[in-house]
């Protein structure tokens, strides 16, 4: 599970050096997409296999969002990772609140605003003296279209009342019910392995192989790797670096969406879902070493197992010494396990500061 989330991040962060704090929110949106798809397929004959459509839909939706983010914001901030971090955090805040308060009224208002503003922008940018009046256009059209949109949205809200002002999702979490064939579990010895987990494991494996294949066997994958290694050289050789950037970012975000589908199978989804995963995934990338898929895979496995082992007090039961036992029992909750894992990570970084599989070469320190 952690691996799936970290995979997209490893691509975006490792290959592009861009910190995307909104990654968790993309996961959340993927999960919400699953919810929407599930509701859309509820009455049809396909309701049993909606999950596959949800996967595709989530990938497309989040990839498009990622593309938008890259084109709109991140593009201007390459080479300034700290600023990117802050900007994407801003985006993640907006996305969270958007999910909470989105409603027909809200969407209509937003659509009217965007329509008016960008139409005005487009019309006015035809004028020859556009550069000179640019700031005026911005200063006048922005509040004007915002005001019009607000008024219309309010009018709509008053005429149709609750029918359109009701938020789509609200602040409460929504539940995705797994299709019937994913309920239940596989009997393995004494313990039961739920099918949903199995499904997620298979999904993760598929994604990892897909990404591996894409990066190593396709022409675009080759280009992505080339740009990662040496941007200016690739540009000189005629690789469209900007398209590659956008593509990489979109794929990373799309994978976040797929991870979101998996999250939605595990439990209830709310607008805060993304937040709880983001730091874990970052830890995976840091421990695994930047730019290496293998590192991420191993690190995700190790961290996931460690927190489970410590959290479930497995070591404490193995140790005979009562002092040590009580020590491990102190950490035997999910939150205390996190404390322990973090301490271990810090210790680990003392020995291998660049992660499990560090990149070698002169360009590392640049």
């Amino acid at each position, binding site marked *: 599970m952690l691996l799936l989330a970290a995979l997209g991040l490893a691509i975006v962060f490792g290959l592009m050096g861009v910190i995307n704090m909104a990654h968790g929110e993309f996961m959340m949106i993927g999960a919400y997409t699953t919810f929407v798809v599930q509701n859309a397929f509820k009455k049809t004959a396909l309701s049993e296999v909606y999950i596959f459509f949800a996967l595709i839909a989530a990938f497309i939706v989040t990839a498009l969002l990622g593309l938008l983010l890259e084109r709109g914001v991140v593009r201007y901030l390459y080479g300034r990772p700290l600023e990117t971090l802050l900007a994407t955090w*801003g985006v993640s805040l907006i996305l969270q609140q958007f999910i909470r308060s989105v409603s027909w009224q809200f969407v209509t208002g937003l659509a009217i605003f965007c329509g008016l503003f960008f139409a005005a922008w487009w019309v006015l940018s035809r004028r020859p003296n556009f550069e000179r009046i640019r700031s005026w256009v911005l200063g006048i059209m922005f509040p004007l279209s915002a005001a019009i949109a607000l008024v219309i949205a309010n009018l709509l809200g008053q005429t149709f009342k609750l029918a359109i002002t009701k938020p789509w999702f609200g602040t409460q979490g929504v539940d995705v019910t797994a299709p019937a064939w994913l309920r239940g579990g596989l009997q393995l010895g004494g313990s039961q392995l739920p099918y949903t987990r199995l499904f997620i494991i298979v999904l993760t494996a598929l994604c990892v192989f897909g990404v591996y294949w894409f990066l190593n066997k396709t022409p675009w994958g080759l280009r992505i790797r080339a740009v990662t290694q040496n941007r200016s050289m690739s540009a000189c050789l005629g690789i469209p670096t900007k398209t590659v950037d956008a593509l990489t970012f979109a794929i990373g975000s799309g994978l976040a969406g797929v991870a979101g589908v998996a999250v939605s199978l595990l439990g209830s989804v709310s607008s805060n879902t993304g937040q709880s995963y983001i730091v874990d995934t970052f830890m995976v990338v840091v421990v695994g070493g930047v730019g290496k898929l293998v590192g991420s895979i191993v690190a995700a496995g190790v961290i996931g197992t460690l927190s489970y082992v410590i959290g479930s007090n497995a070591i404490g039961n193995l140790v005979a010494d009562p002092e040590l036992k009580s020590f491990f029992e102190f950490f035997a909750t999910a939150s205390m396990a996190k404390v322990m894992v*973090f301490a271990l990570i*810090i210790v680990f970084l003392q020995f291998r500061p660049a992660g499990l599989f560090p990149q070698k070469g002169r360009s590392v320190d640049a």
Partner: protein
Amino acid sequence: MTVKSIETVAEIPQRITARKRRKALILEVAIVVVVALILLFVMPPLLTAIGQGVRVNQLGRFLALAIVALGIDLIWGYTGLLSLGHGVFFALGGYAFAMFLQLQPVPGQTPGQIPEFFSLYGVSQLPLFWQPFYSLPFTLLAVVLVPAIVAAVLGYLVFRNRIRGVYFSILTQAALIVFFNFFNGQQKLINGTNGLKTDTATLFGLQVGSSPIIQGAFYALSVLLLVGGYALCRWLTSGRMGRMLVAIRDDETRVRFSGYNPTGYKVFVFAISAALAGVAGALYTVQSGIITPKAMDVAFSIEMVIWVAVGGRATLVGAILGALIVNFARTLLSEQYPEFWLFFQGALFLIVVTVLPSGILGWFRTDGMNWVRSLIGRPQLVQTYPSLESDPEVVYERETLGDRESDR
């Protein structure tokens, strides 16, 4: 002989700049004192007079937050280390002081009784680490030293391995979550999620939450400590130390190649900034009446960064202004439209990063000044020579040839 004459020639401008500098310093001190006096004696009665008495308390709290902003400016604006974990130090300071207040005897109770929440979890004896907090001097020391030591240890472990940039940010954020979980989970030690309440505690026989004397005193203390923090940061950033910090920010590898070891400087400055956050946490706690693990929220710590970014990085005044402006905007906006604050905040992040990278103060120093100058008909400020900068051909060349997107 020639050497001596050169020296004398060089000395004259130096003396002039020294005098100029002293003048500027005196002016700055005067301005700071005046602002502090206004904050101390004019603002509270004024706000009360116009029926906004609540705002005094808010102002005091935001002044406390401005101290954190100073600390963040010190490590981010000057040293280039973006810490997303200042909530830890803030909360540590707050908890230290809240623990002291919890241990103060409540009138009408037998002295030596342990705080009441302990009985909820079946703890009858005070945990060992609470014991020293009976004493005020120790608490005051702890407010400063505990965050500083935590920061120093964490900083040393991280900086020693030359972990920097984004990795540092992520690690501080992870530390934040770790501390959050720790404080949240330990009901028996520090009352878990519920936090420690300070407004019902008593200090010198007066109730902290409702006594106007105590609240007034803490307000004044916030102002004074803010001034003190400003002076400290100003002093740190002006001398050799300040230049070292900026050098680390701009090119750490080169600093290392010149024979300096940046680790010590970074650890030191991180600890100082943590200590400032601790002080701020203590002040904020007593004025808001409670400290909970919520102070270690991920969002709150990143918000601290945005105060600095809005005000202007690497300008101490900007940090203070930014903290005050953003917080007042937040209270005013969320009083009116609670759901829009997050949109606004998100937009603020985007705007500050993309359009206003040097913050309000930075904008004012360059573009704003130019705008004012163009209004009153003075020539624009330029970086090199007017004949170069305003030459139409040079301008044209710069616009069309240099800094195109394809160059990046």
